[in-house]
Protein backbone atom coordinates (compact mmCIF):
# COMPACT_ATOMS: atom_id res chain seq x y z
CA UNK A 1 0.00 0.00 0.00
CA UNK A 2 1.48 3.32 -0.97
CA UNK A 3 0.30 6.82 -0.43
CA UNK A 4 1.12 9.95 -2.36
CA UNK A 5 3.50 12.26 -0.49
CA UNK A 6 3.96 14.95 -3.11
CA UNK A 7 1.50 15.95 -5.78
CA UNK A 8 1.72 18.86 -8.20
CA UNK A 9 -0.79 19.95 -10.77
CA UNK A 10 0.40 22.17 -13.62
CA UNK A 11 2.84 24.14 -11.48
CA UNK A 12 4.17 27.22 -13.25
CA UNK A 13 6.56 29.96 -12.26
CA UNK A 14 7.06 33.19 -14.17
CA UNK A 15 9.52 35.90 -13.20
CA UNK A 16 9.01 39.47 -14.24
CA UNK A 17 12.28 41.05 -15.33
CA UNK A 18 13.17 44.38 -16.93
CA UNK A 19 13.26 42.71 -20.34
CA UNK A 20 9.85 41.10 -19.97
CA UNK A 21 8.56 37.91 -18.43
CA UNK A 22 10.71 34.83 -18.09
CA UNK A 23 9.02 31.46 -17.78
CA UNK A 24 11.13 29.45 -15.34
CA UNK A 25 8.72 26.59 -14.98
CA UNK A 26 5.78 25.49 -17.14
CA UNK A 27 2.96 23.13 -16.19
CA UNK A 28 4.84 20.57 -14.13
CA UNK A 29 2.51 17.77 -13.06
CA UNK A 30 3.85 14.84 -11.08
CA UNK A 31 3.21 12.56 -8.13
CA UNK A 32 5.75 11.08 -5.74
CA UNK A 33 4.92 8.15 -3.47
CA UNK A 34 5.74 7.93 0.21
CA UNK A 35 9.21 6.42 0.67
CA UNK A 36 10.21 6.94 -2.93
CA UNK A 37 13.65 8.25 -3.85
CA UNK A 38 13.41 10.49 -6.88
CA UNK A 39 15.64 12.87 -8.81
CA UNK A 40 14.91 16.03 -10.68
CA UNK A 41 17.46 15.94 -13.50
CA UNK A 42 18.34 18.55 -16.04
CA UNK A 43 20.89 21.07 -17.22
CA UNK A 44 21.12 24.45 -15.54
CA UNK A 45 18.20 26.76 -16.22
CA UNK A 46 15.70 23.93 -16.52
CA UNK A 47 13.80 25.10 -13.44
CA UNK A 48 14.51 22.04 -11.30
CA UNK A 49 15.76 24.11 -8.36
CA UNK A 50 12.88 26.52 -8.76
CA UNK A 51 10.50 23.58 -8.62
CA UNK A 52 12.20 22.25 -5.47
CA UNK A 53 11.92 25.66 -3.81
CA UNK A 54 8.23 25.75 -4.66
CA UNK A 55 7.83 22.34 -2.96
CA UNK A 56 9.77 23.71 0.05
CA UNK A 57 7.36 26.63 0.24
CA UNK A 58 10.17 29.17 -0.11
CA UNK A 59 8.97 30.65 -3.37
CA UNK A 60 5.31 30.79 -4.43
CA UNK A 61 4.29 29.36 -7.77
CA UNK A 62 2.51 31.66 -10.20
CA UNK A 63 0.09 28.99 -11.37
CA UNK A 64 -1.05 25.48 -10.52
CA UNK A 65 -1.49 23.59 -7.29
CA UNK A 66 0.93 21.66 -5.13
CA UNK A 67 0.55 19.45 -2.08
CA UNK A 68 3.38 18.19 0.09
CA UNK A 69 2.64 15.78 2.94
CA UNK A 70 -1.03 16.66 2.72
CA UNK A 71 -0.79 20.44 2.63
CA UNK A 72 0.01 23.35 0.34
CA UNK A 73 3.77 23.99 0.46
CA UNK A 74 5.13 26.11 3.27
CA UNK A 75 8.13 25.69 5.57
CA UNK A 76 7.26 23.12 8.20
CA UNK A 77 8.69 20.39 10.33
CA UNK A 78 7.59 17.59 7.99
CA UNK A 79 9.68 18.93 5.12
CA UNK A 80 13.47 19.25 5.24
CA UNK A 81 15.59 21.18 2.75
CA UNK A 82 19.29 20.72 2.08
CA UNK A 83 21.51 22.93 -0.08
CA UNK A 84 24.62 22.59 -2.19
CA UNK A 85 26.55 24.52 0.43
CA UNK A 86 26.51 23.09 3.93
CA UNK A 87 25.52 26.50 5.37
CA UNK A 88 26.87 25.50 8.76
CA UNK A 89 27.28 28.43 11.14
CA UNK A 90 30.96 28.91 12.04
CA UNK A 91 30.06 30.20 15.52
CA UNK A 92 28.38 26.90 16.38
CA UNK A 93 30.03 23.57 17.06
CA UNK A 94 29.05 20.55 14.98
CA UNK A 95 26.54 19.49 17.64
CA UNK A 96 25.10 23.01 18.00
CA UNK A 97 24.66 23.20 14.23
CA UNK A 98 22.73 19.94 14.23
CA UNK A 99 20.59 21.26 17.10
CA UNK A 100 19.61 24.46 15.24
CA UNK A 101 16.27 23.14 13.87
CA UNK A 102 15.40 21.92 17.37
CA UNK A 103 15.90 25.40 18.83
CA UNK A 104 13.84 27.04 16.13
CA UNK A 105 11.03 24.48 16.33
CA UNK A 106 11.16 24.50 20.15
CA UNK A 107 11.64 20.73 20.33
CA UNK A 108 12.19 19.24 23.82
CA UNK A 109 15.85 19.84 24.70
CA UNK A 110 17.05 16.58 26.25
CA UNK A 111 15.45 14.24 23.71
CA UNK A 112 16.63 16.40 20.82
CA UNK A 113 20.19 16.44 22.15
CA UNK A 114 20.13 12.66 22.40
CA UNK A 115 18.75 12.43 18.88
CA UNK A 116 21.39 14.81 17.52
CA UNK A 117 24.14 12.57 18.92
CA UNK A 118 22.52 9.51 17.36
CA UNK A 119 22.31 11.28 14.01
CA UNK A 120 25.97 12.29 14.14
CA UNK A 121 26.69 8.65 14.76
CA UNK A 122 24.47 7.70 11.81
CA UNK A 123 26.29 10.00 9.39
CA UNK A 124 29.63 8.74 10.62
CA UNK A 125 30.72 11.73 12.70
CA UNK A 126 30.79 10.11 16.11
CA UNK A 127 33.24 12.03 18.29
CA UNK A 128 33.24 15.19 16.15
CA UNK A 129 30.43 16.97 18.03
CA UNK A 130 32.63 19.57 19.74
CA UNK A 131 34.55 20.53 16.58
CA UNK A 132 33.82 23.67 14.60
CA UNK A 133 32.77 23.55 10.93
CA UNK A 134 36.08 24.99 9.71
CA UNK A 135 37.88 21.98 11.19
CA UNK A 136 35.95 19.62 8.89
CA UNK A 137 36.43 18.69 5.24
CA UNK A 138 33.77 19.61 2.69
CA UNK A 139 32.33 16.10 2.70
CA UNK A 140 32.13 16.04 6.48
CA UNK A 141 30.43 19.42 6.51
CA UNK A 142 27.71 18.04 4.24
CA UNK A 143 27.31 15.07 6.58
CA UNK A 144 26.66 17.55 9.40
CA UNK A 145 24.14 19.33 7.17
CA UNK A 146 22.48 15.95 6.55
CA UNK A 147 22.27 15.27 10.28
CA UNK A 148 20.81 18.76 10.77
CA UNK A 149 18.07 18.27 8.18
CA UNK A 150 17.21 14.90 9.75
CA UNK A 151 16.93 16.27 13.29
CA UNK A 152 13.23 17.22 13.22
CA UNK A 153 12.51 13.82 11.60
CA UNK A 154 10.88 15.20 8.43
CA UNK A 155 8.87 12.93 6.14
CA UNK A 156 10.21 14.57 3.00
CA UNK A 157 13.82 15.45 2.17
CA UNK A 158 14.25 18.05 -0.54
CA UNK A 159 17.89 18.06 -1.59
CA UNK A 160 19.25 20.76 -3.90
CA UNK A 161 22.44 19.27 -5.36
CA UNK A 162 23.64 18.49 -1.84
CA UNK A 163 26.91 16.88 -2.93
CA UNK A 164 27.37 18.81 -6.17
CA UNK A 165 30.39 20.76 -4.95
CA UNK A 166 32.26 17.71 -3.68
CA UNK A 167 34.78 15.59 -5.52
CA UNK A 168 33.38 12.55 -7.33
CA UNK A 169 34.62 9.91 -4.89
CA UNK A 170 33.14 11.73 -1.89
CA UNK A 171 29.92 12.34 -3.78
CA UNK A 172 29.50 8.67 -4.65
CA UNK A 173 30.14 7.65 -1.06
CA UNK A 174 27.66 10.20 0.25
CA UNK A 175 25.03 9.22 -2.34
CA UNK A 176 25.14 5.63 -1.14
CA UNK A 177 25.15 6.89 2.43
CA UNK A 178 22.10 9.01 1.72
CA UNK A 179 20.12 6.14 0.19
CA UNK A 180 21.09 3.91 3.09
CA UNK A 181 19.82 6.48 5.60
CA UNK A 182 16.68 7.23 3.55
CA UNK A 183 15.93 3.50 3.50
CA UNK A 184 16.55 3.14 7.18
CA UNK A 185 14.43 6.12 8.18
CA UNK A 186 11.80 5.66 5.43
CA UNK A 187 12.08 9.15 3.98
CA UNK A 188 10.62 10.40 0.76
CA UNK A 189 13.52 11.97 -1.13
CA UNK A 190 13.59 14.48 -3.95
CA UNK A 191 17.12 15.15 -5.18
CA UNK A 192 17.99 17.88 -7.65
CA UNK A 193 21.02 17.01 -9.77
CA UNK A 194 22.58 17.57 -13.17
CA UNK A 195 24.45 14.27 -13.08
CA UNK A 196 22.73 11.50 -15.07
CA UNK A 197 24.89 8.94 -13.29
CA UNK A 198 23.96 10.23 -9.83
CA UNK A 199 20.25 10.35 -10.72
CA UNK A 200 20.15 6.76 -12.01
CA UNK A 201 22.35 5.52 -9.18
CA UNK A 202 20.14 6.60 -6.31
CA UNK A 203 16.61 7.00 -7.69
CA UNK A 204 13.55 4.83 -8.02
CA UNK A 205 12.37 7.30 -10.61
CA UNK A 206 14.09 10.09 -12.51
CA UNK A 207 12.15 13.18 -13.55
CA UNK A 208 13.89 14.64 -16.57
CA UNK A 209 13.56 18.43 -16.97
CA UNK A 210 14.43 20.44 -20.06
CA UNK A 211 15.15 24.16 -20.22
CA UNK A 212 13.58 27.25 -21.83
CA UNK A 213 10.95 27.03 -20.56
CA UNK A 214 11.61 24.61 -17.69
CA UNK A 215 9.31 21.65 -18.11
CA UNK A 216 9.05 17.98 -17.32
CA UNK A 217 10.19 16.07 -20.43
CA UNK A 218 9.64 12.58 -19.13
CA UNK A 219 9.94 10.08 -16.31
CA UNK A 220 12.33 7.11 -16.22
CA UNK A 221 11.74 4.28 -13.73
CA UNK A 222 14.85 2.64 -12.35
CA UNK A 223 13.72 -0.77 -11.12
CA UNK A 224 16.90 -1.75 -9.28
CA UNK A 225 16.43 -2.85 -5.70
CA UNK A 226 17.83 -1.15 -2.64
CA UNK A 227 20.31 -0.92 -1.12
CA UNK A 228 22.53 -0.38 -4.11
CA UNK A 229 26.29 -0.35 -4.18
CA UNK A 230 29.00 0.68 -6.62
CA UNK A 231 28.62 -2.74 -8.28
CA UNK A 232 25.15 -1.72 -9.50
CA UNK A 233 26.66 0.92 -11.75
CA UNK A 234 28.73 -1.70 -13.59
CA UNK A 235 25.78 -3.73 -14.87
CA UNK A 236 24.47 -3.57 -18.48
CA UNK A 237 21.00 -2.72 -17.11
CA UNK A 238 22.46 0.37 -15.46
CA UNK A 239 24.11 1.47 -18.71
CA UNK A 240 20.78 1.03 -20.50
CA UNK A 241 19.00 3.25 -17.99
CA UNK A 242 21.67 5.94 -18.34
CA UNK A 243 21.26 5.78 -22.13
CA UNK A 244 17.48 6.02 -21.80
CA UNK A 245 17.73 9.14 -19.62
CA UNK A 246 20.32 10.70 -21.95
CA UNK A 247 18.07 10.12 -24.95
CA UNK A 248 15.18 11.78 -23.17
CA UNK A 249 17.33 14.81 -22.33
CA UNK A 250 18.70 15.09 -25.88
CA UNK A 251 15.40 14.37 -27.64
CA UNK A 252 13.56 17.33 -26.24
CA UNK A 253 16.46 19.71 -26.82
CA UNK A 254 15.97 20.86 -30.36
Amino acid sequence: MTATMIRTDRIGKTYGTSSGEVVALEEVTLEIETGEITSLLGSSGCGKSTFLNVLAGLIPQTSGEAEVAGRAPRPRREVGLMFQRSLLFPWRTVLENVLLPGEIMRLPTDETRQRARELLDLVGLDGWDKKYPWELSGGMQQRVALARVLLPDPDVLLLDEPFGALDEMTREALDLELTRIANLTKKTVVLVTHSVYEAVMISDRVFVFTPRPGRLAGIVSVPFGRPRDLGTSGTPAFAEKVAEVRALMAGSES
Partner: protein
Amino acid sequence: MTAMKTPEPQTMSTSALPRRSLRRRFRGPIGGLILFLLLTATWQWVTTAGIVHRVILPPPNEVAAAFFTTFTEGFFYGHLWITVQEVLIGFVVGIILGFSLGALLGTSALAREISYPYIVAFQGLPKIVLAPIFITAFGFGMMSKVMMAVAISFFPLLINTMSGLMTVDAESVQLMRSLTASKQDIFWKLSVKHAMPSIFAGVKTSLTLALVGAIVGEFVGARAGLGFLLASYSYQLQVDRVWAVTMVLALLGIILFLFIEWVDKKVVFWAKRGVTTDVGLA
Protein backbone atom coordinates in the same frame (compact mmCIF):
# COMPACT_ATOMS: atom_id res chain seq x y z
CA MET B 1 23.20 1.06 12.62
CA THR B 2 26.38 0.78 10.69
CA ALA B 3 28.22 4.02 10.86
CA MET B 4 30.53 4.96 8.05
CA LYS B 5 34.26 4.96 8.38
CA THR B 6 35.58 8.39 9.16
CA PRO B 7 38.90 9.75 10.29
CA GLU B 8 39.36 10.09 14.02
CA PRO B 9 39.06 13.60 15.45
CA GLN B 10 42.49 15.07 15.75
CA THR B 11 43.96 17.18 18.47
CA MET B 12 46.48 19.85 17.69
CA SER B 13 49.96 18.58 18.35
CA THR B 14 52.05 21.02 20.34
CA SER B 15 55.53 19.96 19.41
CA ALA B 16 58.55 21.78 20.81
CA LEU B 17 59.25 25.00 18.97
CA PRO B 18 62.34 24.83 16.83
CA ARG B 19 64.96 27.53 17.31
CA ARG B 20 63.98 29.38 14.14
CA SER B 21 60.41 29.97 15.27
CA LEU B 22 61.64 31.06 18.71
CA ARG B 23 63.65 33.79 17.03
CA ARG B 24 60.61 34.60 14.93
CA ARG B 25 58.44 34.88 18.02
CA PHE B 26 60.70 37.33 19.86
CA ARG B 27 61.85 39.47 16.98
CA GLY B 28 58.77 41.73 17.30
CA PRO B 29 59.12 42.57 21.03
CA ILE B 30 62.90 42.94 20.81
CA GLY B 31 62.63 45.18 17.76
CA GLY B 32 59.99 47.22 19.57
CA LEU B 33 62.26 47.71 22.57
CA ILE B 34 65.12 48.83 20.33
CA LEU B 35 62.82 51.32 18.59
CA PHE B 36 61.66 52.64 21.99
CA LEU B 37 65.28 53.21 23.11
CA LEU B 38 66.10 54.91 19.80
CA LEU B 39 63.10 57.25 20.07
CA THR B 40 63.89 58.12 23.69
CA ALA B 41 67.52 58.81 22.80
CA THR B 42 66.42 61.06 19.93
CA TRP B 43 64.00 62.83 22.26
CA GLN B 44 66.80 63.36 24.81
CA TRP B 45 69.08 64.66 22.09
CA VAL B 46 66.66 67.15 20.47
CA THR B 47 65.76 68.62 23.88
CA THR B 48 69.28 68.92 25.35
CA ALA B 49 70.73 70.16 22.06
CA GLY B 50 68.09 72.91 22.05
CA ILE B 51 66.55 71.89 18.72
CA VAL B 52 63.11 71.80 20.33
CA HIS B 53 62.44 74.37 23.04
CA ARG B 54 61.73 72.90 26.49
CA VAL B 55 58.48 74.88 26.71
CA ILE B 56 57.22 72.63 23.93
CA LEU B 57 58.92 69.37 24.85
CA PRO B 58 60.90 68.85 28.07
CA PRO B 59 63.54 66.08 28.18
CA PRO B 60 62.31 62.52 28.82
CA ASN B 61 63.67 62.28 32.38
CA GLU B 62 61.64 65.35 33.44
CA VAL B 63 58.47 64.03 31.81
CA ALA B 64 59.04 60.65 33.48
CA ALA B 65 59.48 62.36 36.85
CA ALA B 66 56.30 64.40 36.33
CA PHE B 67 54.47 61.23 35.28
CA PHE B 68 55.33 59.46 38.54
CA THR B 69 54.72 62.56 40.67
CA THR B 70 51.26 62.80 39.13
CA PHE B 71 50.39 59.40 40.52
CA THR B 72 51.40 60.43 44.06
CA GLU B 73 48.94 63.34 44.11
CA GLY B 74 45.49 62.56 45.50
CA PHE B 75 43.55 65.06 43.33
CA PHE B 76 44.79 63.34 40.18
CA TYR B 77 42.71 60.26 40.94
CA GLY B 78 39.56 62.37 41.23
CA HIS B 79 40.15 63.77 37.75
CA LEU B 80 40.98 60.32 36.40
CA TRP B 81 37.81 58.80 37.85
CA ILE B 82 35.64 61.58 36.37
CA THR B 83 37.05 61.01 32.90
CA VAL B 84 36.83 57.22 33.16
CA GLN B 85 33.16 57.51 34.12
CA GLU B 86 32.40 59.90 31.28
CA VAL B 87 34.11 57.64 28.77
CA LEU B 88 32.53 54.42 29.99
CA ILE B 89 28.99 55.77 30.36
CA GLY B 90 29.27 57.55 27.00
CA PHE B 91 30.66 54.42 25.40
CA VAL B 92 27.97 52.10 26.77
CA VAL B 93 25.14 54.47 25.82
CA GLY B 94 26.83 55.02 22.45
CA ILE B 95 27.04 51.35 21.59
CA ILE B 96 23.47 50.66 22.71
CA LEU B 97 22.28 53.57 20.56
CA GLY B 98 24.59 52.66 17.67
CA PHE B 99 23.63 48.99 17.70
CA SER B 100 19.88 49.70 17.95
CA LEU B 101 19.86 52.24 15.13
CA GLY B 102 22.22 50.07 13.07
CA ALA B 103 19.94 47.08 13.59
CA LEU B 104 16.92 49.12 12.48
CA LEU B 105 18.69 50.43 9.38
CA GLY B 106 20.26 47.06 8.61
CA THR B 107 16.93 45.24 8.58
CA SER B 108 14.55 47.82 7.14
CA ALA B 109 15.06 49.13 3.62
CA LEU B 110 12.41 51.77 4.30
CA ALA B 111 14.29 53.07 7.36
CA ARG B 112 17.46 53.22 5.24
CA GLU B 113 15.79 55.16 2.45
CA ILE B 114 14.26 57.67 4.86
CA SER B 115 17.39 58.28 6.90
CA TYR B 116 20.08 58.07 4.24
CA PRO B 117 20.47 61.85 3.71
CA TYR B 118 20.69 62.39 7.46
CA ILE B 119 23.32 59.70 7.82
CA VAL B 120 25.44 61.27 5.10
CA ALA B 121 25.05 64.70 6.69
CA PHE B 122 25.95 63.45 10.16
CA GLN B 123 28.89 61.46 8.82
CA GLY B 124 30.28 64.60 7.19
CA LEU B 125 29.84 66.70 10.32
CA PRO B 126 32.99 67.12 12.44
CA LYS B 127 31.27 66.03 15.64
CA ILE B 128 33.53 68.08 17.93
CA VAL B 129 31.72 71.24 16.84
CA LEU B 130 28.84 70.01 18.98
CA ALA B 131 30.90 70.54 22.16
CA PRO B 132 29.99 74.21 22.81
CA ILE B 133 26.32 73.45 22.15
CA PHE B 134 26.35 70.49 24.54
CA ILE B 135 28.12 72.55 27.23
CA THR B 136 25.38 75.17 26.93
CA ALA B 137 22.65 72.54 26.92
CA PHE B 138 23.92 70.14 29.57
CA GLY B 139 26.17 72.32 31.70
CA PHE B 140 29.77 72.15 32.90
CA GLY B 141 29.34 68.81 34.68
CA MET B 142 29.73 65.24 33.51
CA MET B 143 26.50 65.18 31.52
CA SER B 144 27.76 67.29 28.64
CA LYS B 145 30.93 65.16 28.34
CA VAL B 146 28.93 61.94 28.39
CA MET B 147 26.75 63.38 25.64
CA MET B 148 29.82 64.30 23.60
CA ALA B 149 31.19 60.78 24.02
CA VAL B 150 27.85 59.36 22.90
CA ALA B 151 27.53 61.67 19.90
CA ILE B 152 31.01 60.95 18.64
CA SER B 153 31.10 57.22 19.37
CA PHE B 154 27.72 55.83 18.31
CA PHE B 155 28.18 56.48 14.63
CA PRO B 156 30.90 53.97 13.63
CA LEU B 157 28.97 51.25 15.40
CA LEU B 158 25.75 52.24 13.63
CA ILE B 159 27.47 51.98 10.24
CA ASN B 160 29.25 48.71 11.06
CA THR B 161 26.14 47.08 12.51
CA MET B 162 24.10 48.12 9.50
CA SER B 163 26.62 46.94 6.91
CA GLY B 164 27.28 43.72 8.83
CA LEU B 165 23.58 42.88 8.91
CA MET B 166 23.20 43.69 5.23
CA THR B 167 25.83 41.19 4.09
CA VAL B 168 23.99 38.16 5.48
CA ASP B 169 24.10 35.32 3.01
CA ALA B 170 20.72 34.98 1.27
CA GLU B 171 20.92 31.19 1.15
CA SER B 172 21.50 31.01 4.91
CA VAL B 173 18.31 33.03 5.31
CA GLN B 174 16.53 30.50 3.06
CA LEU B 175 17.85 27.72 5.29
CA MET B 176 16.45 29.48 8.37
CA ARG B 177 13.12 30.00 6.62
CA SER B 178 12.96 26.33 5.63
CA LEU B 179 13.42 25.53 9.33
CA THR B 180 10.29 27.61 10.09
CA ALA B 181 12.37 30.39 11.64
CA SER B 182 10.59 33.61 12.59
CA LYS B 183 12.04 37.05 11.77
CA GLN B 184 13.36 37.24 15.34
CA ASP B 185 15.02 33.82 15.01
CA ILE B 186 16.69 34.88 11.77
CA PHE B 187 17.84 38.16 13.33
CA TRP B 188 19.30 36.75 16.57
CA LYS B 189 20.49 33.31 15.48
CA LEU B 190 21.87 34.29 12.07
CA SER B 191 22.13 37.98 11.19
CA VAL B 192 23.56 39.35 14.44
CA LYS B 193 26.03 36.50 14.72
CA HIS B 194 27.07 36.99 11.12
CA ALA B 195 27.52 40.72 11.74
CA MET B 196 29.50 40.23 14.97
CA PRO B 197 33.01 40.64 13.47
CA SER B 198 31.89 43.87 11.80
CA ILE B 199 30.10 45.03 14.96
CA PHE B 200 33.19 44.49 17.08
CA ALA B 201 35.36 46.39 14.61
CA GLY B 202 32.88 49.25 15.14
CA VAL B 203 32.96 48.84 18.92
CA LYS B 204 36.75 49.28 18.92
CA THR B 205 36.51 52.50 16.95
CA SER B 206 33.65 53.69 19.16
CA LEU B 207 35.65 53.18 22.34
CA THR B 208 38.58 55.25 21.10
CA LEU B 209 36.19 57.96 19.94
CA ALA B 210 34.34 57.98 23.28
CA LEU B 211 37.62 59.00 24.90
CA VAL B 212 38.09 61.72 22.29
CA GLY B 213 34.54 62.99 22.89
CA ALA B 214 34.94 63.18 26.66
CA ILE B 215 38.30 65.00 26.45
CA VAL B 216 37.08 67.50 23.84
CA GLY B 217 34.09 68.22 26.08
CA GLU B 218 36.42 68.82 29.02
CA PHE B 219 38.61 71.15 26.95
CA VAL B 220 35.67 73.30 25.99
CA GLY B 221 34.22 73.69 29.45
CA ALA B 222 34.70 71.67 32.62
CA ARG B 223 35.63 71.80 36.28
CA ALA B 224 37.16 68.35 36.48
CA GLY B 225 38.58 65.49 34.44
CA LEU B 226 41.87 64.72 32.77
CA GLY B 227 41.11 67.05 29.84
CA PHE B 228 40.45 69.86 32.34
CA LEU B 229 43.68 69.00 34.19
CA LEU B 230 45.62 68.98 30.94
CA ALA B 231 44.24 72.38 29.91
CA SER B 232 45.02 73.82 33.37
CA TYR B 233 48.64 72.64 33.28
CA SER B 234 48.92 74.03 29.77
CA TYR B 235 47.77 77.51 30.92
CA GLN B 236 50.28 77.33 33.79
CA LEU B 237 53.06 76.36 31.34
CA GLN B 238 53.76 73.22 33.35
CA VAL B 239 54.74 71.44 30.18
CA ASP B 240 56.20 68.37 31.86
CA ARG B 241 52.82 67.88 33.58
CA VAL B 242 50.98 68.35 30.27
CA TRP B 243 53.05 65.56 28.78
CA ALA B 244 52.55 63.40 31.85
CA VAL B 245 48.74 63.69 31.61
CA THR B 246 48.97 63.05 27.87
CA MET B 247 50.77 59.82 28.64
CA VAL B 248 48.12 58.88 31.20
CA LEU B 249 45.44 59.42 28.53
CA ALA B 250 47.40 57.31 26.06
CA LEU B 251 47.68 54.59 28.68
CA LEU B 252 43.94 54.79 29.41
CA GLY B 253 43.18 54.47 25.71
CA ILE B 254 45.48 51.46 25.38
CA ILE B 255 43.99 49.68 28.41
CA LEU B 256 40.43 50.20 27.17
CA PHE B 257 41.39 49.07 23.69
CA LEU B 258 43.17 45.94 24.90
CA PHE B 259 40.14 45.09 27.02
CA ILE B 260 37.82 45.30 24.01
CA GLU B 261 40.26 43.35 21.90
CA TRP B 262 40.25 40.62 24.54
CA VAL B 263 36.43 40.54 24.58
CA ASP B 264 36.46 40.55 20.77
CA LYS B 265 38.68 37.47 20.64
CA LYS B 266 36.39 35.68 23.11
CA VAL B 267 33.12 36.59 21.40
CA VAL B 268 34.10 36.51 17.72
CA PHE B 269 36.40 33.52 18.00
CA TRP B 270 35.46 32.17 14.59
CA ALA B 271 36.24 35.28 12.54
CA LYS B 272 39.95 34.57 12.06
CA ARG B 273 39.16 31.04 10.95
CA GLY B 274 37.38 32.13 7.78
CA VAL B 275 33.76 33.10 8.13
CA THR B 276 32.70 30.91 5.27
CA THR B 277 32.19 27.19 5.58
CA ASP B 278 31.39 26.78 1.93
CA VAL B 279 32.28 23.48 0.44
CA GLY B 280 35.35 23.90 -1.68
CA LEU B 281 36.62 26.90 0.20
CA ALA B 282 37.01 25.28 3.58
